[in-house]
């Protein structure tokens, strides 16, 4: 499938900007440029006799802006509750009594022009909000600026010239939530913006309205002219300006395929996740960011099978921040309800710590995962405390997953830490989850080989297929020289997974696969065939895996996995899979 995709090698005449995918889908059409002119603020003082009239100009502008927002809000309330809320807040901002006082004072006392008074007053608040360092608030600044610019434009009699043609692709600087709603009324088919953030509301609205959006497409407004043919690739985060005929053709195909896939997955999402013989397969979502929580419901995932916690560390650049992450875990539990959340303990390499001086010659074979946690007990305890506090309030809804376990002692040591913290919580009279499950990642061959013994210490297994492939085949997946050897479907990888599954089933603990392999429908069939009935993957992959699983019975998949386990090479595995599927399709029963 990948080889059909757009090859980002520039053809004559076309220009490519790599941005960030913010709302999926493809749009191919003529460009409209929006709102790219800078506002010019007056600097001339207002005559003392004119100050009251100047202030009245602001009042009049505000009335029009609020009316306009109400109109947009009406459109929004029909389509999107969240957008409606944002615009309500924007109306409150426009009518803010303190803002009004400040603007009035600047006009009356300093003789500022109304536009300048508006600008200065807003700047003051924007600076204060920036100073809070609160990401949620800082993302809202774009909505506040939107109001400021509307007021200033209105005062300057500059109409909000959109110049947006119906059915076009909008290229703009920065996106305002209300703009997206206006765009959708103009039947805009896609948007690319020079700037933007994934958590900004404009992004959320674009998603909910199904408009493909690429943000951080730096220079988009500079290289695009109105009427240019453009492609917005909201899947890979690209903007192609003046595409060459073959690029256009590639994207037309891609768009068609995507549309079909969407319709298909919408249908599949509603179907139960069962094999042909009626056995339920638990399909969960891998999640890292709060913005992904909605996908759990959208794709009917049975909770979160892997909640990654690394991004906190990288974003915050400090361990102290960890304590505040209880709120994040709490939200994850809510998003996954009534199902559970499996939280993987902090899994990074030693290079992320500023106090390490030793440069590791082999970081992938070095100080990572649980090895770091056991050496950095404070970090471990702060994370465990946060997780266990939330688990105490939501018993049975959280499981802990320990990364990079290579020897049994590591999981025993983590259990000891959890037990000590539990005692402390009991002593403090804090609620705790008595049956908090602790599982280990199986991603190192040694762990797979001693899975039987590991199963005596762990409550469940979760197979991480990326690292397992890397360590089994001794291939650094980031190394281009040997990238062909990174074979996730190699029989050796399957054999280790089988050994782990057998041990788990024998010892009566649960096993799941949370790696990339599970999102490959063919591989998923093999995994289910090994008796692994619990898979976790990026939520968007769930429909296609479910579709595959529903076609076959447990027995059929068990036969398939046996053949795959006996193969000698990955190519052979692929061949077996292809032939098997063809043979099954030949059966008139499907």
């Amino acid at each position, binding site marked *: 499938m990948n080889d059909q995709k757009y090859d980002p090698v520039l053809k004559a005449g076309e220009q490519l900007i790599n941005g960030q995918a913010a709302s999926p889908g493809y749009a191919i059409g003529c460009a409209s440029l929006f709102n790219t002119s800078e506002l010019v603020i007056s600097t001339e003082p207002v005559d003392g006799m004119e100050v009251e009239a100047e202030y009245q100009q602001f009042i009049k502008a505000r009335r029009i802006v609020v009316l306009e927002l109400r109109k947009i809000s009406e459109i929004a309330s029909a389509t999107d509750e969240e957008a409606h809320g944002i615009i309500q807040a924007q109306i409150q901002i426009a009518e*803010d009594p303190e803002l009004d006082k400040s603007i009035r004072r600047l006009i009356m006392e300093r003789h500022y022009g109304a536009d300048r008074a508006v600008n200065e007053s807003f700047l003051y608040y924007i600076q204060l909000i920036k100073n809070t360092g*609160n990401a949620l608030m800082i993302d809202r600044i774009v909505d506040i600026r939107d109001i400021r610019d509307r007021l200033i434009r209105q005062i300057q009699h500059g109409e909000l010239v959109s110049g947006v043609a119906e059915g076009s692709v909008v290229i703009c600087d920065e996106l305002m939530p209300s703009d997206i709603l206006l765009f959708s009324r103009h039947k805009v088919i896609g948007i690319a913006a020079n700037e933007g953030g994934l958590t900004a509301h404009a992004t959320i609205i674009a998603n909910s309205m199904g408009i493909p959006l690429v943000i951080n497409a730096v220079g988009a407004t500079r290289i695009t002219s109105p009427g240019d043919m453009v492609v917005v690739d909201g899947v890979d985060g690209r903007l192609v300006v003046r595409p060459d005929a073959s690029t256009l053709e590639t994207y037309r195909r891609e768009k068609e395929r995507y549309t079909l896939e969407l319709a298909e997955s919408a249908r599949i999402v509603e179907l139960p996740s069962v094999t042909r013989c009626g056995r339920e397969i638990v399909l969960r979502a891998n999640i890292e960011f709060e913005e992904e929580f909605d996908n759990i419901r959208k794709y009917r995932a049975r909770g979160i099978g892997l909640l990654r916690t690394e991004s906190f560390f990288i974003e915050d650049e400090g361990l102290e921040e960890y304590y505040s992450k209880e709120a994040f875990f*709490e939200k994850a539990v809510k998003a996954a309800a009534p199902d559970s959340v499996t939280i993987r303990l902090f899994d990074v390499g030693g290079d992320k710590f500023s106090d390490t001086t030793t440069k590791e010659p082999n970081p992938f074979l070095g100080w990572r995962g649980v090895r770091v946690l056991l050496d950095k007990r404070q970090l471990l305890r702060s994370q465990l405390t946060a997780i266990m506090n939330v688990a105490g309030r939501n018993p049975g809804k959280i499981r802990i997953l320990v990364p990079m376990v290579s020897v049994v002692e590591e999981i025993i040591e983590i259990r000891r830490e959890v037990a000590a913290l539990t005692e402390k919580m009991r002593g403090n009279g804090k609620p705790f989850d008595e049956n908090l499950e602790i599982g280990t990642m199986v991603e190192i061959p040694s762990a797979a080989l001693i899975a039987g013994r590991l199963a005596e210490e762990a409550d469940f297994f979760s197979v991480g297929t990326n690292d397992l492939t890397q360590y089994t085949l001794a291939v650094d997946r980031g190394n281009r020289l040997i990238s062909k050897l990174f074979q996730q479907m190699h029989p050796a990888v399957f054999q280790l997974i089988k050994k782990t599954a057998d041990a788990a089933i024998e010892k009566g603990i649960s096993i799941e696969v949370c790696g990339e392999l599970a999102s490959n429908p063919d591989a998923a069939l093999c995994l289910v065939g090994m008796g692994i009935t619990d898979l976790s993957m990026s939520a968007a992959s769930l429909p296609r895996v479910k579709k595959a699983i529903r076609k076959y019975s447990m027995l059929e998949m068990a036969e398939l996995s046996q053949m795959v386990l006996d193969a000698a090479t990955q190519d052979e595995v692929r061949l077996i899979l292809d032939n098997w599927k063809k043979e099954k399709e030949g059966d008139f029963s499907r």
Partner: protein
Amino acid sequence: MLMKKIVVKNAAGLHARPSSMLVQLASKFKSEFHIHMYGYRINAKSILGVMTLAAECGAELELELDGPDEKKAMKAIIELFDSGFNEMQKEKSR
């Protein structure tokens, strides 16, 4: 004049939507409404003012109400805080 200490309970804190709800509610009453936090005193009928507090979950605020309907206003505002700004309710209704 009434004063009362209160803790922000909803997980995401007093972000844009709760700020908007708070201001909307407060504006229904005649009483003046101020919030004290970190030594600041802001007009809580000003959404921009409330947003600059960026009060996170667990933050302690002091509410100050002054006017003819201060008791009624205080009761309604505390209820809104205690409900976690209906965030859980919103989750359920989705």
